[in-house]
């Protein structure tokens, strides 16, 4: 299963980006192989309507869960429609590596 994490740069030490849709990178974690892949967010600098585009983009990556700091009302509706589970972690100190450990240790 693949999990997308919105992060501020492309390393395992990267922290959660506080604004989901405008994060710099998405870390795509494969929970089976523990592989992490960083994909640049193509919509980070667009002015409006990014919720729809970002959720579509993530859906096309075959992701079934998404981790972010918090989610707005509109983007939640978009992800609901793709049946992608949202996980809001209000802890800006956790890094990608922490999340990989948490996701794979159970």
């Amino acid at each position, binding site marked *: 299963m693949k999990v997308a994490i919105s992060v501020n740069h492309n390393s395992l030490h990267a922290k959660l980006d506080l604004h989901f849709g405008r994060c710099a990178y998405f870390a795509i974690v494969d929970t089976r192989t523990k592989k992490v892949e960083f994909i640049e967010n193509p919509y980070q600098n667009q002015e409006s309507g990014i919720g729809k585009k970002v959720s579509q983009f993530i859906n096309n990556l075959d992701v079934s*869960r998404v*981790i972010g700091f*918090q*989610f*707005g*009302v509109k983007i*939640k509706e978009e*992800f*609901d429609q*793709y*049946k*992608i*589970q*949202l*996980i*809001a*972690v*209000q*802890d800006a100190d956790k890094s990608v590596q922490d*999340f990989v450990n*948490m*996701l794979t*240790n*159970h």
Partner: protein
Amino acid sequence: MPRPKKIRKINNPPKIKGFRPIGQLSRKNPVVINFEEYEAIRLCDYELMDQLAASKTMEVSRPTFTRIYESARRKVASAFVDSKSIVFEGGKVNFDNEWFNCLTCGAFFNNPGANTSLTSCPLCGSSHFQNSDLQGLSCPEESHTQTDLTC
């Protein structure tokens, strides 16, 4: 001990965390407007409902709604007059949604495939989680960290 507050129902939580006055940096002593007070103003003055209909929407009694609404208006007035910033936070509320809160790692998560029920936290795998609807959101006096989810 006072009677516990009934849980108020919120349909649309605020999209932002608050307001700041222009031309003056006053981050000190912001006016804290609860989600229920925000919702009262939204229902009454934006949706133009009367107080009886609004109280039914929030599932509280009409006099209670009036108290919430009055408190909200007074807070807004005090923010305007004393040029204070406004922060939306806390209150005994229940969002109309399906968020869960993991008691082990503290993550909030939802269940978009509503037909299957969740057995463990998707992040840490713990089975200690609760529906955050039941617990309401904690008051700002108790916690400053937990309340900002817009759902």
